[in-house]
C-alpha cells in the first residue's frame, strides 16, 4: 500500500511537469501577447518587460527558466495583475473555490448514491422508473442552464436568494446546487447501472435464498462491487466540478480561482494560467489516486502493484 502511494506520488511529478510544459507552450504560441493592450507598446519597452519576466529567447529557454523557478516553489508573478504573485492570487481565491466545489461534491454524492441505489432496488416497479427519470432529468439540465434560470426564478421572481456575491451562507445555495445537480444524475446513473448488474449475479441469489432482507442485500452486499464505476468517476467528477465552477463563478460573481483563470487565458497571462493549471492538476491526480486506491479496496480482483 505504502509503496503504491509513494510510486504514484513519484509518478505524478512527471505528469505535473508535462502539464506545465504543455500549458506554458500552448499559451506562449497562442496569438496575442500578455503585454499588448489598447495602446501599442513600443518594441523597446516590450522587450524590457519580456526580459523582466524572463520571457525572452526561444520557448524551451523560457520554459527552462520557468520550471527551475517552480522547483524552488515560486510560481512567478502575474503579468496582468502587476505586483501580485501567482501564489498570492491562488492562495486568496482557491479556498473559496474549494469551499464551493466541496459542497457541490458532497451534494452530488450525497444525493446521487441514494437515488441510484433506490432506483435500482425498486427496478421492477413504478417507483424505480420514476426515480430513474428524476436522475435523467437532473443530468439533462446543465449548469449553464441552471445558473441563469435559477437566478431568474429564485432571485428576481421569488426574491429567495441573492443573485450573486460571496460571504453569506445563503449566497452559496444557488451556485452550489446549480453546480451539483447535473452530477447528481450522473452519479445516480452509474450507481444504478452497476447495481443492476450486480443484483443479477450469483452471490446475490445466494444471499436472497438464505433469507436476507432486500435492503440488507442491497446495502451490505451489492453496493460494494456496484459502486466501482462511480469510484472511477471520482476523478472526472472533480474535473467536471472544477470546470463547471469556472462558469458558476462568472455567473454568480464569486471571486474564486476560476475567474482569475478565465481572465488569465484571455490576457495570455502565462504564469497565472500555468500556475492555476498546476493546482488543478494536483487536485485531479489526488482524486485519481484515491479512486484507484478505493477501487482496489472494493474489488479484491484488482491488484494494486501489478
Amino acid at each position, binding site marked *: 500500500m505504502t509503496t503504491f502511494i509513494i510510486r504514484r506520488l513519484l509518478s505524478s511529478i*512527471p*505528469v*505535473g511537469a*508535462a*502539464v506545465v510544459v*504543455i*500549458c506554458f507552450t*500552448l*499559451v506562449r*504560441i*497562442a*496569438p496575442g501577447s500578455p503585454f499588448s493592450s489598447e495602446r501599442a507598446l513600443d518594441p523597446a519597452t516590450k522587450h524590457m518587460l519580456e526580459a523582466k519576466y524572463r520571457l525572452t529567447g526561444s520557448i524551451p529557454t523560457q520554459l527552462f527558466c520557468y520550471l527551475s523557478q517552480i522547483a524552488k516553489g515560486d510560481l512567478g508573478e502575474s503579468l496582468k495583475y502587476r505586483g501580485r504573485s501567482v501564489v498570492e492570487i491562488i492562495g486568496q481565491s482557491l479556498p473559496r473555490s474549494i469551499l464551493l466545489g466541496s459542497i457541490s461534491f458532497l451534494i452530488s454524492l450525497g444525493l446521487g448514491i441514494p437515488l441510484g441505489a433506490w432506483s435500482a432496488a425498486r427496478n421492477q416497479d413504478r417507483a424505480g422508473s420514476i426515480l*430513474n*427519470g428524476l436522475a*435523467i*432529468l437532473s*443530468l*439533462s*439540465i*446543465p449548469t*449553464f*442552464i441552471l*445558473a*441563469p*434560470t435559477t*437566478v*431568474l426564478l429564485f432571485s*428576481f421572481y421569488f426574491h429567495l436568494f441573492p*443573485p450573486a456575491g460571496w460571504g453569506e451562507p445563503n449566497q452559496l445555495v444557488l451556485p452550489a446546487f446549480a453546480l451539483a445537480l447535473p452530477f447528481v444524475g*450522473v452519479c445516480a*446513473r*452509474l450507481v444504478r*447501472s452497476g447495481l443492476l*448488474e450486480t443484483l443479477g449475479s450469483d452471490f446475490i441469489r445466494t444471499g436472497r435464498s438464505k433469507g436476507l432482507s432486500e435492503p440488507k442485500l442491497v446495502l451490505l452486499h451489492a453496493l460494494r462491487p456496484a459502486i*466501482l*464505476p462511480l469510484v*472511477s*468517476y471520482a*476523478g*472526472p467528477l472533480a*474535473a467536471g466540478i472544477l*470546470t463547471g465552477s*469556472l*462558469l458558476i463563478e*462568472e*455567473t454568480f460573481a464569486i471571486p474564486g480561482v476560476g475567474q482569475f*483563470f*478565465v481572465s488569465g*487565458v484571455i490576457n495570455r497571462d502565462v504564469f497565472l494560467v500555468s500556475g492555476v*493549471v498546476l493546482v*488543478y*492538476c494536483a487536485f*485531479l*491526480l489526488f482524486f*485519481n489516486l484515491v479512486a484507484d486506491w478505493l*477501487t482496489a479496496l472494493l*474489488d479484491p*480482483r*484488482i491488484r494494486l502493484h*501489478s
Partner: protein
Amino acid sequence: MKIRILLAIFFLIGGAAIVGPWISPYGVSEVSSARLLSPSFTHWLGTDLHGRDLLTRLLYGGRISMLVGLVGASVSLLVGVAYGLAAGYLGGSIDNAMMRLVDTLYALPRIILVIVLISLFDLKLKGFLDATPLAFLAPHARLLLLFVALGLVEWLTLARIVRTQVLSIKERPFVLSSRLIGQNTPTILIRQILPQVLPIVLTYLTLALPAVILEESFLSFLGLGVQAPLASWGTLLADGASLLNPIHTPWWCIVFPSIALASSLLLLNFIGDQLRKPQK
C-alpha cells in the same frame, strides 16, 4: 412502445430543425426594428435584442448543436474504447504510461486546448481547404476544429471507465480459458472482453452524445464555440443570459433556449436508457 414515442419526438425536433428554417418567414440573421418583443402570433417565441425571430434561430441552432453532438460523440467513442481496452489489457508499465497521459490531458483544461487549436489552426485549415476540392467546407473550418477538439477531450472519461472494467474482467477465468485455447490478444480483446464492456460503454455513450452537445454549448456560452453568423443553442442561451438583470429581463430569451436544449438532452438520455433495457 415507449421508445417509439421518444424517438418520434426526437425525430420531430430534428426534422423541425432541418426543415424549420426554410419554412419560416423570417431569416436566421434577419435584423428588424422589432426588438425584444414578447411571444405573440407574429413572433411565436418573441424576438431577441436585434429583432431576430427567436423560433427561427432556435430551429437553426438545433441543426448545429445536433451535428456537433453526433460527430463529437462518435470520435470520442472510437478513441476512448480502443484506448481503454489496450491500457487495461496490456497492463503493467504500458498501462501506467497510457493512463498518466490521460491524467495529463485531463489536467489540461479543455478551454485552453480549444482556444489554442482554434486560434492557431483556424486560418491555416481554411487556407488548406480552399486549395483542395473540399473548398465548400472552408467557411466551416471553425466548426470542424470544434468537432476535433470536442472529440479529443471527451474520450478521456470513457477510456478510464473502460480500463477499470477491463482490469477486473481480465482476471476472470474465461479470459484465461480463451488464452489457453490459443486465441491471440486482439481476438480476446474484441471477442471476449469488448462484449463484457459494452453495457458500460453504452451507458456512457448515451451520456457522451448529450455531453458533447453540452460541451459545445458551454464553449459557445463562454464565446469560444460556434460563432456568428452560425448559431447553436449554447450561443442563443448565452445571448439570453447576457440580458439577465434585476429590473426587466426578457425571460423568453433565457427560457426557450433552455427548454430546447434541456428537452433534447432529456430525450436523448431517455432514449439511451430505454435502449439499454433488456428486451422482453
